[in-house]
């Protein structure tokens, strides 16, 4: 049988955004085509802000972590003065990695190939036998990404010197990071240790999955059975109390109504419930009731292109999705906690991180299996070209179990990768219970 020649990606239409029907479809070639993958590397990962890590991962001067961002190995470090630095993990001499440890603390990092040493401020401090270079030698420091900035401890870099400022890039997603970060009086903290796993599937499938409320009950039936067996009564109405939101610049979220956070975890003792309630009562005084009501709701946030923050209130997961090949991704996940919480609440978070989100937990393996079967079936993308992402297009308000948040992401993807513009999808604004503002913000608005 003769294969149909593949059309060049420039001319190919990957997104069918039909507002008349309405219908929204994604061509499955986007999940398998190496040329698409290359364009994503250049046009997305080479251009926008990308998450590196959280400031609390580096608690002391000279702490460092090594990780990949957009396929580039980087050193994420705190320098002598306490400033966060990100360096390309490659010796400017002949290219070997300066640092081959995943984490540690060192004032100097020495390339094991020829012994050049650099400090955590990126400066070259020692070259063995440097007389052979002559007195005029220009001593190179470590290279760095073009831009580095952080928002409430979330550190981002961009390889594009002309990228917009981070706060502008984050758009309305800032507010959702605030809802997470306001849950601690002393600052939310990322715990030491990570979940690291890989999925034999295109990276965009996990982006979709990360705020897909539609799949939860069917895919994660096992987990919900376990929670029910532990004594929690799952209320279908509570589970359905959610909306999907477009946060601008491709960011989006599935957002639970007040009180939906925590319905997924194992039950707490009376003392644990009391501590939790007391903590949130304290926040009400500081931030106002409307904001804290929102804080008590679950939220699955995707910051374009590959940062996921899932906040079920009793468990906050930060997930970074790294495309490796068109059919393979690597995933790193961290647990974020309010450090002042008592032992029982801390235990519930860790339990959630392990039993739900862990690579050997009761949920993530289900997702991995679902995504890997998707990828295997995309071998037939010529015979079955389109995936449907239309759910909720005709609804006045998109629900969390709808697919508005994914369409938002895909439209931004199409704009960057294929230069195709899509108008914003019109919906009514969410009800007031999803829009409560932080008291301090309200005061600023009033004063302004």
């Amino acid at each position, binding site marked *: 049988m003769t294969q149909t020649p593949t059309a060049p990606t420039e001319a190919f239409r990957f997104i069918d955004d039909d507002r008349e029907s309405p219908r929204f479809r994604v061509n499955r070639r986007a999940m398998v085509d190496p040329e698409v993958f290359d364009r994503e590397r250049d046009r997305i990962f080479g251009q926008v802000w990308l998450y590196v890590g959280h400031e609390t991962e580096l608690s002391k001067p000279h702490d460092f972590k090594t990780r990949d961002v957009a396929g580039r190995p980087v050193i994420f470090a705190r320098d002598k003065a306490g400033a966060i630095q990100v360096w390309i993990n490659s010796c400017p001499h002949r290219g070997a990695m300066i640092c081959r440890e995943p984490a540690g603390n060192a004032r100097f990092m020495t390339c094991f190939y020829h012994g050049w040493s650099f400090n955590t401020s990126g*400066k070259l401090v020692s070259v063995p036998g440097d007389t052979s270079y002559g007195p005029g030698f220009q001593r190179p420091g470590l290279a760095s990404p073009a831009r580095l900035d952080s928002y409430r401890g979330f550190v981002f870099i961009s390889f594009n010197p002309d990228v917009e400022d981070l706060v502008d890039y984050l758009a309305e997603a800032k507010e959702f990071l605030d809802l997470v970060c306001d849950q601690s009086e002393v600052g939310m903290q990322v715990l030491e240790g990570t979940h690291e796993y890989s999925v034999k599937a295109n990276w965009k499938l996990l982006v979709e999955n990360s705020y897909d409320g539609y799949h939860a009950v069917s895919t994660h039936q096992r987990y919900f059975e376990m929670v029910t067996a532990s004594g929690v009564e799952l209320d279908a109405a509570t589970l359905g109390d959610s909306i999907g939101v477009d946060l601008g610049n491709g960011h989006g979220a599935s957002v639970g109504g007040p009180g939906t956070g925590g319905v997924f975890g194992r039950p707490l003792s009376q003392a644990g419930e009391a501590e939790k309630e007391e903590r949130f009562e304290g926040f009400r005084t500081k931030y106002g009731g409307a904001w804290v009501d929102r804080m008590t709701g679950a939220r699955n946030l995707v910051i374009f292109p590959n940062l996921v923050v899932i906040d079920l209130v009793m468990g906050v997961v930060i997930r970074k999705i790294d495309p490796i090949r068109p059919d393979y991704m690597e995933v790193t996940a961290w647990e974020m906690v309010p450090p002042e919480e008592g032992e029982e609440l801390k235990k519930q978070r860790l339990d959630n991180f392990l039993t739900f989100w862990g690579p050997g937990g009761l949920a993530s393996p289900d997702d991995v299996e679902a995504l890997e079967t998707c990828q295997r079936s995309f071998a037939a993308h010529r015979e079955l070209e389109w995936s449907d992402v239309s759910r909720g297009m005709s609804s006045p308000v998109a629900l969390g179990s709808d697919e508005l948040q994914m369409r938002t992401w895909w439209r931004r993807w199409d704009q960057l990768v294929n230069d195709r513009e899509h108008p914003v999808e019109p919906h009514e604004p969410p009800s007031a219970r999803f829009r409560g503002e932080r008291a301090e913000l309200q005061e600023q608005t009033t004063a302004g």
Partner: protein
Amino acid sequence: MEREAPLPRIEPRHFVAELEGAGPVEVAEVRLTGIPRGAVALLCGGDGLATQAPEVMNALAEHGYETLAVDLGSGSLARADAVAAVRSLLALLGERGWGAEQVGVVGYGAGGTAAFAAAGALSLGAAISLSPRDVLAEPVALTSTPWLGMFGEHDEHTTPESVVELGRRLADAPCFSRVVIYPGVGADYFRGAADALGHAAAFDSWQRLVEWLNARVSPRLSPYAELWELRRDPSDPSPEGSVR
């Protein structure tokens, strides 16, 4: 520590110096030619200056470190006096052009206690204590010197529980520190032994010591590096740095 094929041995030069807090003390010195990697103030315990110190000084020289070694006694020196003595050693090293960040302090036994005290009081490149004593006797504040403490499980002066407690207290200190307990060995684990645990503890502790120094002690600038420093625009400390 055990060594199989020693390089030609450097005989330390001995002299007496007046150290603040300790009085006149015999000092052993190993100087290196060329551009040494850094300097170490070696604080011996017991009779270490006469016995183990020359071997340790030679081993440090192989990694590019000059040393000044002293014996600060068996623990009779108050911590403040021990810190003052280290300060005097720093002054002696300063005469050779070594700045505090280019110096590591390494102490064995009672000398390890002095190194621990120095780490809490001075801003040095690095500090390392092997089998220090009474580590919980006084409040600890590691503010500016990263400290590595290594202990034997059966150390009669320091229980594993107190080492764990020390690690807990140091976790919140501004400066990075690490404690290590070697299983199945006593306080003299660093001398090496024929059995597997003793040999492993001696080998590992020496490896950690060298890596701790190399990762933290500032290297001395070569003449060409100094020229480069002069040519660089001081307002642009990191020309390759990110826009922040």
